[in-house]
């Protein structure tokens, strides 16, 4: 029971702080669910984040998977509680804001706030790169030798996806599936 309350509280706080579409909450979420509560491992955290990017809907739906693991006695309930925590508080704010919005809409503060908070969100996304990388085990790539050339595949895949995401129209799930296929072929050990 107390686990469910911890889940609800943890994700509710993240929900309320999820400015910028929730892009910035990954490092804080990791700190709570991997380091403090140890509900999931580094590898699981990154894999769940990956699944969140693969399925339709908001990425932060992967909170459900963390809730699922955090509540072994009742995984479905854990998933539900985490999802409610992740989505309901921010949604309630959205409903409540509608009234104030009519006044705020034309105010210059609207742009000042959303532009002003931008650099912090982008910095948080860079920190997320570090967070997500903790769950990926890169093999030693140096020195390069003919018999272990597959060690290079994870590095090349990372670079390929980053560039393809910026330079092509391939969607995030397609790129993850391509990377997954490369993984099945070359990253089994």
């Amino acid at each position, binding site marked *: 029971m107390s686990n469910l309350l911890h889940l609800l509280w943890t994700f509710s706080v993240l929900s309320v702080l999820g*400015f910028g579409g929730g892009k*910035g909450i990954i*490092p804080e979420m990791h700190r709570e669910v991997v380091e403090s509560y140890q509900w999931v491992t580094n590898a699981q955290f990154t894999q769940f984040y*990956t699944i969140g990017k693969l399925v*339709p*809907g908001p990425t932060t739906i992967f909170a459900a998977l963390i809730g699922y693991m955090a509540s072994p006695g009742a995984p479905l309930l854990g998933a539900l509680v985490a999802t409610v925590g992740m989505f309901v508080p921010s949604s309630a704010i959205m*409903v409540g804001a*509608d009234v104030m919005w009519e006044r705020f809409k034309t105010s210059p503060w609207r742009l000042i706030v959303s532009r002003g908070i931008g650099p912090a969100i982008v910095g948080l996304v860079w920190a*997320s790169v570090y967070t997500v990388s903790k769950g990926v085990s890169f093999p030693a790539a140096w020195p390069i030798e003919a018999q272990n050339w597959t060690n290079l595949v994870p590095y090349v895949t990372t670079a390929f996806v980053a560039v393809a995401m910026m330079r092509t129209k391939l969607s995030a799930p397609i790129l993850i599936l391509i990377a997954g296929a490369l*993984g099945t072929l070359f990253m089994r050990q």
Partner: protein
Amino acid sequence: MSVEAAAPPQARVTPPSLLQIAATFAAISSTAFGGGQKASIRQQVVKQGWMDRDEFMDGLALAQVLPGPNILNLAIYCGQKTRGVPGAVAAFLGASVPPFLIILIAGALYTKYASNPWVHGALRGASVGALGLTIGNAFELSWDERDDWIKIVLLALTAVVVGLYKMPLLLVLVIFGGVGIVHEFLKSKRAGKQAAP
């Protein structure tokens, strides 16, 4: 697009039923991925005459300013504008229940097959892919801030204190968000002065 432009400005039809709202957002949330969703919502909502384009764009701006996934916030706005709070609840359920069910299936498959070596390899590869996506996203977002060196310094500092020193999110938003807002405010004031005759 041309259909929209040709429609008379007062083309609003009767507001949708709660079921229609839920079904519309359920269809979008379970099929559209990432960037495509805003466009599909706009198409559905404006084309069906639930609201006009300006009202929709207001909602998009609000959805982006407030915390929470933009798509979910936008769905709630559309539900609320057409059918009040019950509409907002219908939109919330429509936009969140299908992704929840889909990820539950993914979770069940995960617990069953994650230790299979082939699946394990696929998960490792996919994780590397998600890392690449995050890097690409970070580069793109940083590029948008490139014309203002103070913002670049701010975002770099944020990345360091969060990544290396684990500064709590609330503190990050208050300090770095706060400095960013003050900076943006001073900039708009300066721009205002220059523009004055």
